[in-house]
């Protein structure tokens, strides 16, 4: 029974990891950028959510109405102001600049919010559960998983069925020719980052309700998101959900064996997949 429970909990946890991963996957797909500050941006989103709930006295899920557009705006400005300048054939500038950003965000948060762990109060949502035979399923993890499916489905729709998604794919295919079509790639990249950080904001709020957070946890979230992207397969949005679930299940099963092995077993499953299939389970080949 413990094992079934671990698998169910892990699967639901995978929804959160998929949300970490979706933003990473999106910006990599559009502009081949790997954002090392992604995890710190998740933490930033959680703190923005915390401040919103404290200042306005609203429920964390209501805070999404403010945090999502705010993070999207931050994403657009960040991309146009800084990250666009790093894009090119050399991988060093984007890596080092986002690495610098990561340190800046982390220490700004330390300065403003201190190192004390924080948590968002979501009332009954935190403890509510649904009985399922002998097991009980937390409403929050279930909600997170459903949101992950909806968000990834939404991204998939935007990417493949809308003019914006067409522009994303065109710019990703061939920057020069896309420019000839009247698409300003700097603006398109800005929109892609805005969308990615809007998704990140959702992940951040769900993270902040689920567990306590402090400014130093960004690196770990980046790694989970990154592992989910690679496991699922590069460029595959639904793959991030599969990757997230595999990672989540590996972690809960590891924790079930020995509490100290939770993170370790997730990393090891990731490394095994890299060893066997470096492009992930379901890579999307262009």
């Amino acid at each position: 029974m413990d094992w079934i429970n671990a698998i169910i909990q892990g699967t639901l946890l995978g929804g959160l990891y998929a949300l970490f991963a979706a933003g990473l996957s999106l910006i990599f797909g559009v502009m081949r950028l790997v954002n090392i500050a992604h995890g710190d941006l998740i933490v930033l989103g959680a703190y923005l959510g915390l401040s919103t709930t404290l200042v306005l006295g609203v429920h964390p899920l209501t805070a999404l109405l403010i945090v999502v557009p705010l993070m999207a705006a931050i994403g657009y400005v960040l991309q146009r102001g800084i990250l666009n300048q790093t894009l090119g054939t050399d991988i060093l500038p984007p890596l080092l600049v986002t690495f610098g950003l990561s340190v800046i965000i982390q220490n700004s948060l330390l300065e403003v919010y201190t190192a004390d762990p924080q948590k968002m109060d979501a009332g009954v949502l935190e403890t509510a559960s649904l009985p399922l035979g002998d097991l009980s399923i937390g409403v929050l993890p279930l909600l997170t998983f459903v949101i992950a499916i909806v968000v990834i489905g939404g991204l998939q729709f935007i990417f493949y069925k809308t003019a914006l998604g067409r522009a994303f794919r065109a710019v990703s295919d061939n920057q020069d020719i896309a420019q000839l079509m009247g698409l300003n790639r700097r603006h398109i990249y800005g929109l892609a980052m805005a969308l990615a950080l809007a998704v990140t904001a959702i992940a951040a709020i769900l993270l902040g309700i689920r567990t306590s957070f402090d400014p130093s946890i960004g690196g770990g979230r980046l790694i989970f998101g990154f592992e989910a992207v690679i496991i699922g397969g590069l460029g595959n949005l639904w793959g991030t959900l599969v990757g997230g679930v595999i990672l989540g299940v590996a972690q809960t099963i590891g924790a079930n064996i020995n509490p100290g092995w939770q993170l370790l077993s997730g990393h090891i499953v990731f490394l095994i997949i890299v060893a066997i299939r470096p492009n992930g389970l379901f890579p999307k080949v262009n």
Partner: protein
Amino acid sequence: MPNNSSEPILKVSGLNSHYGDFQALYDLDMSVEEGEALAIIGANGAGKSTLMRSVCGLISNDAAQVQYRGQNIGHLRADQVAKLGIALVPEGRQLFPSLSVEENLLIGGQIGREGVWSLQRVFELFPILEERRNVPSTALSGGQQQMVAIGRALMSNPDLLLMDEISLGLASVIIKTIYDALPGIIDEGMSVVIVEQDITKALSVSSRVYCLQEGRVSLEGQSSTVSRDEISRAYFGVE
């Protein structure tokens, strides 16, 4: 919009363009009149493609070196130039591989300029594309891809259409189909620049011709009156 008939739609003056470290155009002057079909011929490496890339903003130049309807555009980005009404059918077609045929056409139209060209009009011009509208652009034959590339440029309803080597690498029967479609495009009143290595084809659809040689204009004349001799001298540089 001022429409002074004596003023050329495009005027290139003293253009020095570089392709990487290499200077491809030297002090080049050229103009395109409103409504005309102009051919640019020249050997490989004469600078034809660099000229096209300079006009449409893929290569940045001094503002005044390229003028469009009296406005300096040499310094503008390609997307800004496109919005003014200049479209390029790039050499080698360069469709977007992850977009379907229809999506490739739609993305050409997303600038939102008004005009006669629409998805429906493009499908009337090249019926095969309507049949294959939902397949990935990579699944098309070379000739069909060229049709998409032309259709994609038309979708933006340009006033000036640049076509770079549209017959390159295609079978002659396909080239004929495409060239047969050109008069229908030109008759809509837009100005067209056709860059070609195939001199006969270029002369057959154009009213005026420039020949480039090593980055300079080596000949300028009426397509109907230039002689073969003049062309081969201008083309190959043999005296």
